[in-house]
């Protein structure tokens, strides 16, 4: 199988490089954007399998990126993982409501990031199984 494509949207170049090295080592192909506007443009161009998105970005923020992605049908389906230094359940909740598949707090643990990526891509290994299905006795 061809390697999966991941778009990293983060305004910190060091963090982009760090993630790239880590993802490359795990056979993912990476693309980059450093602001909200080019985040959406790059997603349109590359059609990645997954997007890693920072919240604090120039030219908008992570939420505006997610909003735009949702308006474009073929981009709306791409899973988004938010990785942010912002904290607070408020931001987390907002991210999920905006359609994020996961929210990780910086500084992020690489093992956790990889596990979440695998889950979001539906890849095996290290995934948490779905917890339960309805089984009412009525």
């Amino acid at each position, binding site marked *: 199988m061809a390697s999966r494509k991941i778009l990293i949207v983060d305004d910190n170049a*060091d963090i982009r490089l*760090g993630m790239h090295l*880590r993802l490359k080592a795990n056979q993912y192909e990476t693309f980059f954007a450093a602001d909200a506007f080019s985040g959406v443009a790059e997603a349109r161009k590359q059609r990645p399998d997954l997007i890693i998105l920072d919240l604090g970005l120039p030219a908008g923020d992570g939420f505006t990126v997610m909003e735009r992605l949702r308006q474009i049908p073929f981009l709306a389906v791409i899973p988004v993982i938010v990785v942010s*230094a912002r904290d607070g359940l408020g931001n987390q909740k907002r991210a999920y*409501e905006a359609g994020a598949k996961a929210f990780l707090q910086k*500084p992020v643990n690489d093992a956790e990031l990889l596990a979440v990526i695998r889950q*979001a891509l539906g890849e095996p290994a290290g995934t948490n*199984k779905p917890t339960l299905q*309805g089984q009412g*006795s009525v």
Partner: protein
Amino acid sequence: MKGKPLQVLLVEDNAGDVRLFREMFSKEKHDAFQLTHLLRMSEAETHLAKGGVDIVLLDLGLPDGHGLDTVRRAHAAAPDVPLIVLTGLDDEALAAEAMNAGAQDYLIKGQIENRALPRALRHAVERHRMQTETDLIRTNQMQFKDEFLSHVSHELRSPLTAVRQFVTILLDGLAGELNVEQHQYLEIVLRNVKQLHSMINDLFEVSGVQAGKLKIELQCTSVSDAMGYTVNTLQGAAAAKGIVLSSDIAGKVTSVCADPARLRQILIILVDNALKFTPQNGTVTIQARIFEEDPDFLLLEVADSGCGIDPEMTERIFERLFQASDPDAADHNGLGLGLYICKDLVTRQNGKIWAKSELGQGSIFSLTFPIFSLSKLLAPAFSEKRQTECPITLISIEIGSQTGWLSNEVRAEQCRGIRDLLRGCLYSDLDVLLPKMDSAGPAEVSFIVAITDGIGGAAICKRIRKQLDSSEPLQQAGLTHSASYRSLEAIKRNSTESKEDFLERVTSDIQGLMNEVILSRHV
């Protein structure tokens, strides 16, 4: 204030006293004061509520108000207006109490010297203004400090992320093989990065503590799990210093009413501290037992064989930013926030925390938590108001995730909302929505105990399903849900049985049902 007369409200029913006050004011410049006189407290309240009064002169013996009560009422009607109380000669003690209740000053009738009244009024107004200003400054400062802390800890996280990323990239050999020494040094970097990270989290946490933002969800929490988790997490750090870290539970200790994440956090802070201040080859133990002084509480103790604390300091260590000034402790780095956070968390979970220590003799940190008691929670359902011969129905509601993508925190957040929703589905105010049970596992299971017939159980389930189906956040988060119920046969209280025994019996039956539900999910 210059040029504008001071609006004085005199509340006094004694005509003679009123005449005296009018005389005193008449000696002042006519535009300095404007006196309004009222006879009753009720009139004064109405007048104060309208505003425009600068200061109140209040008699403590009015026809419709007496003593401190008048002070409180006046204060409530206009909290921002300073008050001077008027008393008789023999009431000085009462006047002092009035000051505690919010009065700025008091004057003893018949002892007001020439020109003392206007001076007292001006001073009271000025004092009040300064006090208000100081309070405002203090509030603003606190707010600024919290915002600052929150901002700083946020800004520090980004560079730290990059440091951590690249250290782990090197450690994992992604940039080539490392020799043993290089590996060892990078481990040191990583350890310090982690410490920095935890300090930043403390900063953040403490700005949350200030604002009272830390969420606490009280539930049935296993103490042994929290102790086990703490020992496992810190065993490595203990072993590195050759310290024996162990835990011990005395007797039948079950569960406490606490937030499990917060309980773990508290124990981690305490044990981490103990390890820091204990020398090589020492011991650190966590113990749990029923609190001798109050058997409704569980006592947890974290004891170490470390350098100890000056007994005079055992209270101050819980203050914010407190740090031992001991030069030997200079390498025991930290921000001095841990114990402050602990105290806040313990207090908000209805417990207490204190320390006992002697210099050089080690320290014992003790904390108490209320013991979780199902029968206490169920008691309202079996109050006298109720017919207990109806079947007892246990409704179980399960919330799960279709995808497994949700982090625990978010699931907890969602489930809090769901619990509010469930509270609204209760049939009567005697029905009990039980707190989350720890043993329920990763999926959220909520239980409601209601006394209904079978139809009632079905009706509640139907209502709950309908509510959950229409919950938007639930659907957006991709959560699944189900509701089911089981009924116990009518349990009748024996004539020989005490109310407590009956409750105990019902509780154990309900506990049995709950265990069945939980077990059936694991099969």
